[in-house]
């Protein structure tokens, strides 16, 4: 929880907590996981990461399906590394 708070407070990086709690994967409609290392929203079940724009405070997340990046198997963080995981 402390790691997430630090990301949210940094100017120009990160996504608002409000948005991260609302947004779902545009394809599966299932909840997303915030990944601080890659500044993206991840749907582990289908192995896709959606980027968050760092251009402004409260970055604009890009949830266009074609802009989602396929995550390589060894790129996926371990489950207990993520403090804002919303689904098992």
């Amino acid at each position, binding site marked *: 929880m402390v790691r997430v708070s630090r990301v949210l407070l940094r100017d120009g990086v990160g996504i608002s907590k409000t948005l991260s709690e*609302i947004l779902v994967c545009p394809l599966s409609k299932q909840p997303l996981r915030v990944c601080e290392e890659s500044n993206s929203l991840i749907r582990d079940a289908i192995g896709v990461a959606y980027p968050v724009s760092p251009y402004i405070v409260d970055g604009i997340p890009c*949830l266009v*399906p074609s802009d989602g990046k396929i995550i390589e198997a060894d790129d996926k963080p371990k489950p207990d590394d993520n403090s804002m995981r919303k689904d098992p």
Partner: protein
Amino acid sequence: MASLHLSFCQLAGNRPPSHRSGRLPVRCADERQALFNRIAPVYDNLNDLLSLVQHRVWKRMAVSWSGAKIGDNVLDLCCGSGDLAFLMSEKVGPAGQVIGLDFSKEQLLIASSRQHSRPKACYKNIKWVEGDALNLPFPDSYSNAITIGYGLRNVVDKQKAMKEMYRVLRPGSKVSVLDFNKSTNPFTASFQEWMIDTVVVPAASGFGLAKEYRYLNSSIQEFLTGKELEKLALETGFSNARYFEVGGGLMGNLVATR
């Protein structure tokens, strides 16, 4: 006066192009996205100029018809530079939440810049998301109201867009769809086509965008009439659908209730 909103549709499969006055056929979603990115810097000023600021009146009507109220969670799809999102923000107030979604990053950056340059406290309730109107990143029954201004005509699959809007609306809530009116009145249709050819395209050429706006007429021709929009909404599952002509019949607004 005609408002200045671009319009492109995808030419699907082997369907022959249908367009007014023998104009060029439509383009794909990628080209359309690039186009909206290109016009972003002049979009707002050109809208004011070409509609003699009437587009602001039509947008206020669209927001009123959406039924948005204080404390609501609302969406503005195909939000562009944010005109409707800002109006929705005033309707729902600081206790509410507005999400503006668009597939043009350049338009969203302008919207965000406008948000941070304006003093109204309620605008803090607006968040921007780059996304696809055909694959909305929101859960079922999330929203109390949806607006979409000059967007439905531009999506490549209007049926799918309506289904997505239906999915994310809470039961009993409304979507308000503002766009050019595809009039069944020959006089109105001719006048609209003449206005676009004689006023809109020449004005756009002053900004180096004549080519982009020349497609408006064919786009309107490929759009749905008011009756067809009502039918589409009812077939999608909306319990009620009504279409209102505004701006002397040049514009139209569909109001559909889930």
